[in-house]
């Protein structure tokens, strides 16, 4: 249908190998959770969001492919930096590997930090706290006006059970591709905004419940 149109937004996903980058995109776009082969180079996904076309570039995680990332980052409107919540080393990689990369190639690019595999780690065993995650996310976005961002640039997700996955993308799209209320209802999108703060107390009670 819109085969000839240029995408209105490019979102790139980066992060260490096997943190679940492809799983995150697939959960959002196909609403499926399956085992993926490692990505070599990049894989491409498309999402129609309201009147807009969004291209999602899913990149290879292996450190050896870092050399290609400059090229992949070009003209990205937003970057999802994914780390595996059950593996603190992958969080370190975001500092060590990807921050320098993004700083040099794209200034105006919105950066969203996303923790994955939330289902794998019990809250009391996690190494990276919510505060640390948010701190990194804010530092990454220094020099960018994120006051109109409807949510914190930090999410904790599980592609396995689907929690908070679509919120990540919705948050990015709302920031980069603003829609009027009319447009939103025309395309059948929810009008409520997502806020991680709001969900916080809910999760805390859930925690109490299971322990």
């Amino acid at each position, binding site marked *: 249908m819109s085969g000839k149109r240029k995408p209105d937004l490019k979102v790139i996903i980066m992060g260490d190998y096997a943190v679940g980058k492809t799983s995150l995109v697939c959960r959002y776009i196909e609403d499926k959770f399956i085992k993926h*082969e490692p990505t070599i180079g*990049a894989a491409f996904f498309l999402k129609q969001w309201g009147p807009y076309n969004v291209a999602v570039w899913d990149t290879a995680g292996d450190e050896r492919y870092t050399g290609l990332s400059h090229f992949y980052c070009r003209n990205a409107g937003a970057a999802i930096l994914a780390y595996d919540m059950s593996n603190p080393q992958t969080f370190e990689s975001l500092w060590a590997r990807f921050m320098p990369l993004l700083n040099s190639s794209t200034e105006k690019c919105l950066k969203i930090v996303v923790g994955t595999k939330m289902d794998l780690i019990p809250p009391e065993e996690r190494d990276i706290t919510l505060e640390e995650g948010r701190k990194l996310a804010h530092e990454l976005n220094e020099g960018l006006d994120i006051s109109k961002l409807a949510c914190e640039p930090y999410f904790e997700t599980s592609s396995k059970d689907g929690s908070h996955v679509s919120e990540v993308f919705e948050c990015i799209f709302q920031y980069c591709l603003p829609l009027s209320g009319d447009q939103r209802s025309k395309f059948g999108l929810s009008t409520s905004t997502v806020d991680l703060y709001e969900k916080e107390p809910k999760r805390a009670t859930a925690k109490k419940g299971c322990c």
Partner: protein
Amino acid sequence: MTSIISESADIHNAVHILKRSIFSKRSKDTTESSAPGWKLFGHVPPKSSGEKEAAQISQEYQAKLRASQLAPSHPKKQDVEVSSTTALILENRPMNLPSKDPEEAEKHRLQYEQMIECAKKKEQREFKLRKKQLQNQLRQEDQLAKSSRIWNNEILPNWETMRSSKKARDLWWYGLPPSVRGKVWRLALGNELNVTAELYKICIGRADEKIKLMQDSESVSSYDPSCDTPSNKEDSVSVIRLDVSRTFPHLCIFQKGGPYHDLLHSLLGAYATYRPDVGYVQGMSFIAGILLLNMEAADAFICFANLLNRPCQVTFFRMDEAMMTAYYKTFEEYFKENLPVLYDHFDKQNLTPDLYLIDWIFLLYSKSLPLDVVCRVWDVFWRDGEEFIFRTALGILRAYEKTLLSLDFIHIAQFLTKLPEDVTADFLFHNIEPIKMTIDKKKFSNILSTYKDNGES
């Protein structure tokens, strides 16, 4: 060792034959039991009613059928194939209901005959198709047997003199028989590095030690970021562990508990200890997997080490960006020469070849094409060398040119990084064949070296 692929094909055939014989037996049974008024649809009529007539009709039909089937060459077989239509029997109304008006009965009889005729025609059509498929299969098997005889008796014993003969090269193009595939790959690749089976054993031993050491230290101190930075190549061990089970997941043989899990794990671990400077790069597991499917583990290691030592593989696995660009530029030149219209389209879209070539070059198509097609591509890759990687790429672009011309940047990128799953070897090779790899008498290596020099100066 015969390859897994051929074995599974054999099993498939066996199952197929088994099924066929079961079905044909079953349909024969129905023929026999259909004689005393057996019918497929409707209630079983009251015992005495209409049985005689039904039997008569069916017998008449059988007689007719037999008469019409005397002509074909395999009357017996066809009899079995078509007999199932006779299970549908026209019956008069049971005695306890008023009988049909003669006109109506005649109409029904005609409809019945038409139905039977259609069913018969359909079955004959299907039978012909099956026969054709079987003949094709037999012909392919014959060809395969013939070609493996030639490989075993003529070419392999005189490898050095025969390998570049026209006969060998022509045979090669149509695919190596699975029984000699591993042997030919190994010979064609050679062993420049003089890797031996003993060396492989030593490397496995060292890799095992290292893994044990890591596991021990893991259990003592849970996590120490200082010695475990992502840039550390020792990290290979954990990536390997992860990737082995992500290799060809649909085959279920490399996964934990599968027959090739340990073999693949050892091979990759051994390579990381053999070449610590290269280590493990994601994607290697696919290449090693294909080798393991076609030869013994030690041979697979020898091939793996030598393959990764080839110029194109060295360039990409070490991310030598200047050389990578030279390869892309060379490819683009052939692209422009062979498919000018599509080249313009890609150019207008600003779609550079690195987007789709990376995956293809790194993995030698092992993730992008069906496994049997991959083996066919590899066959000729050993014959023609690295230029065949790029020729295959152009073959793919040619095969889907029409589709690609109607797509924009992101859709092309999406299409090429996830090719249709139904691509067959014949279809692909039919499209590779017309791709010319000489431009103004300049060969691939000539053009590559000009770009290489340009990059350096």
